[in-house]
């Protein structure tokens, strides 16, 4: 992901996902293989329509055609969910060539339209997801109820079926120990906070995903505006905390950042937890202007490329956790020294 979105010193990415189902088919959980295939065929067909071609250039991938590693890389790039990678019965994904749109077929719901933008662009992401939704709904009969709205497999998604989220890098709020207070305030306004890889993961590397929890009883615009407003406030808090860090304990912060940079640049073994933390420090250093040697784009790439599946793909070998930590350190060293060639290197 390029580092060119608005407020991208704090907001890594903005994402909107819409969950939809077809009226006359059992939801994926209960569907037989042939029923899943049928749904997949119908939705892939719509994916090939001229209308969708006007939105962008798309490629369809049937998941059963991929090996485990290839699926895992898609998960680490946030293009498909772990669910779809693990249970790919009738599963497919329609990807835009710039990888900003991912349309998942037969995940928990028949159709999940996901738009991912760099930086703070949650309204733009909703605009695009809505446009793609209109194309599918014109050609497919959605499961919709006058009272309950869009009908989804899980009752937590019913109504608008929308899950909007922003991924934020909040190192200064963590360092100044304000994060817990802010996170508990967030959950009180109907938003949820999660770690980097969605449901069930820790907030590695000071990355927090903030998303709407309520999908029923609020309109899409209200949901998006609410998330936007809250994220905007957190951005301001993080900026204030960063500038306080700079004025009140600049030397200490600079020391921490440069130590992390040194370690990343020279370490021979690097586990994923330490990598996330050190990368977060360096990224903060870049954003604060304390480190000129690295670009934000390199940092964003490293955050993705040091994930296990990516490492395996880059080095084209099967690895145990120990080798992985060695390879990870190697990759980070190369990248930070300006050698951007991977694979076969």
């Amino acid at each position, binding site marked *: 992901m390029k580092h060119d979105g608005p407020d991208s010193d704090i907001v890594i990415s903005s994402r909107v996902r819409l969950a939809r189902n077809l009226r006359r088919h059992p939801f994926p959980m209960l569907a037989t293989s042939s029923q899943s295939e049928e749904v997949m065929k119908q939705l892939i067909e719509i994916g090939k329509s001229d209308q969708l071609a006007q939105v962008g250039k798309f490629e369809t991938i049937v998941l059963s055609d991929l090996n485990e590693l290839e699926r895992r890389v898609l998960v680490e790039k946030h293009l498909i969910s772990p669910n779809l990678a693990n249970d790919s019965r009738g599963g497919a994904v329609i990807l835009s060539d710039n990888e900003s749109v991912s349309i998942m077929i037969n995940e928990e719901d028949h159709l999940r339209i996901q738009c991912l933008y760099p930086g703070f662009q949650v309204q733009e992401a909703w605009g695009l997801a809505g446009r793609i939704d209109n194309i599918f709904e014109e050609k497919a009969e959605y499961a919709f109820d*006058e009272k309950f709205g869009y009908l989804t497999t899980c009752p937590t998604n019913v109504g608008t079926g929308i899950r909007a989220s922003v991924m934020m890098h909040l190192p200064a709020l963590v360092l100044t120990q304000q994060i817990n207070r802010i996170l508990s305030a967030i959950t009180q306004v109907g938003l949820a906070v999660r770690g980097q890889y969605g449901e069930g993961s820790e907030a590695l590397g000071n990355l927090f995903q903030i998303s709407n929890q309520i999908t029923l009883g609020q309109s899409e615009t209200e949901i998006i505006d609410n998330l936007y407003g809250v994220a905007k406030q957190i951005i301001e808090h993080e900026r204030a905390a960063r500038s306080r860090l700079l004025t009140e304990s600049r030397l200490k912060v600079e020391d921490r950042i440069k130590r992390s940079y040194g370690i990343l640049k020279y370490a021979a073994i690097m586990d994923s937890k330490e990598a996330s933390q050190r990368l977060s420090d360096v990224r903060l250093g870049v954003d604060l202007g304390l480190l000129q040697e690295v670009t934000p784009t390199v940092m964003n790439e490293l955050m993705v490329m040091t994930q296990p599946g990516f490492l395996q793909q880059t080095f084209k070998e099967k690895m145990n956790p120990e080798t992985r930590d060695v390879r990870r350190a190697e990759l980070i060293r190369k990248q930070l020294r300006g050698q951007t060639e991977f694979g076969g290197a």
Partner: protein
Amino acid sequence: MICQECGKRPATLHFTKIVNGEKTEFHICEACAREKGESLPGAPNGFSIHSLLSGLLDFEPAGAAGGGVKPKAARCDECGLTYAQFSKIGRFGCSSCYKHFADHLDPLLKRVHGNTVHVGKIPKRYGGQIQYKREIEQLRRDMQGRIEREEFESAALIRDRIRELEKKISDL
């Protein structure tokens, strides 16, 4: 807040259990949650959003006690999922489940979303009729207010608009 199990680490998981109207709150840290076997959301065989939901579902709503179909006996004609199964897995089997379990869904949806009625986007193919119905409901409330304030002339105009919309629905 400190974890109530170990008394050392900060509590990061907070949940409330209500059994027969009795409320118990839990505040525990991740390490203790793991030890207690209630591993983190998303972890294999662990504590997931669905098991949390099923905790909400796995009881008879207070209103269902006297008469009416017991929710556990309800069954979706389309996919065969029973309400008992639904309350275990926290997921619907097909779109008809919503129709078959409709009587029992409001308390659940109220808990999860604080609301029970969709107010967002409507697919175009269903659009016209639902849009008109929503407008009629709004106008009826408006008309009632005006009648109470004895603003009969403007109330009559609204009544005419309602009739117009009702005709549009029957013509669809």
